[in-house]
């Protein structure tokens, strides 16, 4: 049973980027990559964060760790206000929240043996003594299904799936409570993807950690997540338990996403084709940001932005269909 204490609380988080053009920078406007996101992650749960590329899901993940400094809002982790931490306390916090990136190729130093890459966090966080570090690295490597003897090898000697395991081992080094996994299996072959997903589930069950699992692949999210948040143009448009969301999607965008995923074992059903692409984030549409592509658009959607509210207990959506 999941303990209902929020591990991480995000309130009205915003991350804006100023965009300029020209030799003498002339402001073009602001990109609202994350625009007022509020979320909780409960101890030991997997929150899936779904959206198309450019919707702000990766920025949100990075903003939680202050790898991207948020413009405004609140983040609290185990009761600590993350945004007011100084450099040193932030470092301690980053031991407890770790991130795994999509591309293990570019997140591992090609000239560093993988054992050192994994052990680097231990040095930063003050685990002294090469002997002790070596033992912990060996334990971590075994935990992710790699032979401890591979610690002296370099990243290029491993396959993509193995490199992603190394990325996970590195994230586990400081016994984190929360791992932000940013598209961790998108770059992997399907046959290897299943291995890594299973590994992540095993580690979660063993250590009772929580994941924020960022992905564009709904099938993968359905497999791993407990709750799912759907993001569109910097905002959360729907949030619910996994079963509820997949069975009974409320927001037309979620409906369209679900129908775009062709189930392998599902017969043809009618498919909702979204017209066009995501609008430019520099000029988000007025009213509901989704109204330009929505198949159920109404008059009010063009004028007023819908509030994010609880439509059914535990099931939130931001859409005028549910006033």
């Amino acid at each position, binding site marked *: 049973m999941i303990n209902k204490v929020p591990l991480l609380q995000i309130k009205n988080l915003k991350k804006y980027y100023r965009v300029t053009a020209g030799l003498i920078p002339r402001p073009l406007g602001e990109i609202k990559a994350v625009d007022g996101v509020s979320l909780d992650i409960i101890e030991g749960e997997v929150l899936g964060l779904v959206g*198309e*590329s450019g919707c702000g899901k990766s920025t949100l993940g990075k903003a939680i760790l202050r790898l991207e400094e948020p413009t405004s809002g609140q983040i609290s982790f185990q009761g600590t206000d993350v945004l007011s931490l100084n450099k040193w306390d932030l470092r301690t916090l980053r031991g407890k929240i770790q991130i795994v990136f999509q591309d293990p190729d570019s997140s591992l130093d090609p000239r560093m043996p993988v054992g050192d890459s994994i052990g680097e966090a231990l040095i930063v966080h003050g685990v002294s003594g090469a002997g002790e570090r070596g033992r912990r690295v060996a334990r971590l490597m075994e935990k992710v299904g790699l032979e401890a003897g591979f610690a002296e090898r370099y990243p290029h000697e491993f*396959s993509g*799936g*193995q490199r992603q395991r190394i990325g996970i081992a590195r994230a586990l080094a400081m016994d984190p409570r929360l791992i932000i996994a940013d598209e961790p299996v998108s770059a992997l*072959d*399907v*046959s*290897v*993807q*299943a*291995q890594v*997903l*299973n590994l992540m*589930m095993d580690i979660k069950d063993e250590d009772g950690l929580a994941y924020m699992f960022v992905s*564009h*692949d*709904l*099938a*993968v999210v*359905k*497999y791993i997540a407990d709750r799912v948040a759907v993001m569109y143009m910097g905002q959360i448009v729907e949030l619910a338990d996994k079963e509820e969301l*997949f069975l009974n999607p409320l927001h037309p965008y979620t409906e*369209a*996403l*679900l*129908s*775009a*995923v*062709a*189930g*392998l*074992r*599902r017969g043809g059903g009618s*498919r909702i*084709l*979204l017209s*066009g*692409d*995501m609008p430019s984030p520099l000029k988000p549409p007025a009213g509901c940001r989704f109204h330009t592509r929505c198949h159920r658009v109404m008059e009010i959607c063009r004028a007023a932005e819908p509030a994010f509210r609880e439509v059914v207990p535990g099931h939130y959506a931001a859409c005028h269909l549910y006033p």
Partner: protein
Amino acid sequence: MKTWFYTRRGIVKAVNGVDFDLRQGECLCLVGESGCGKSVTALSLLRLFDSPPGKIVSGKVMFAGIDLTNCPLEQIRRVRGKDIAMVFQNAQSALNPVFTIGDQIMEQINAHGRHSRADARRKARLLLEEMNIPQAENALNMYPHQMSGGMKQRAMIAMGLSCDPAMLIADEPTTAVDVTIRAQIMYILQELKTRRSMSIIFITHDLSLVREIGDRAAVIYGGRVVEIAPVETILSNPAHPYTRGLIACLPDISTDLKRLPSIPGNTPNPIDLPEGCTFHPRCRDVMDVCRSTEPALVNIASVHKVACHLYDNAGAFIA
């Protein structure tokens, strides 16, 4: 057909015995994971790889009575684009950033025939309209960087269609785009198949797309076709252990699983392919014979072929 690349580190047997045929109006899917040789197969059909180091060491590609593997270069140039068009995975790098989309499509149109500028432009606009690109007249004047990923990919398809080819090779056309855009592109390809009765070779690693568009599918592993059958048969009744594994390990949106089945190990290195059956180090049903002898592609049903020692030469299941 076999296409090998002779490199300093050894011979890369990228394509190591691929056999299939494609009928008029049919969509054949080549399915496989990265490095299995599916893209090199497609490039080999039109001899679109660098040679050296690449070489088609054996086999034939027969298209309308011509063997494309050893016809003169002039002849294959006439086939490329005019009879067989190709759409690549990454539209971003396949389009020229310094020319407008219109210019690039018109260049294609004129490559295999003479048209006046107005004529070519009108034809280009019709093609973009067929691709459901809004305000096609406007889009002709756009540069690739002004278009979204989905629009670029559709412009690429329009370019491929500019000479009314009989056959289209689509190499992972939806890999770099979002699910919603992917649905749009799949819709366009399906339309092409029904309206123009075009033959399509669709290359993908995603089995769920195969169900949507394919008539038949060939599963490729280690440079060889390990199974080929109608799509329904492959998905509902896969015969090769690799195909079964691939289908099982795909998370599916309509089922609930506590744990995903997975295939142990990694895809093989094409420089150093395993002896015997290339899949044997990862195979659940491995037998002694698999380690030493390469299985032949045999018929297990009239339209279902598989290369696996679990089936004897007559196609009967033995193990």
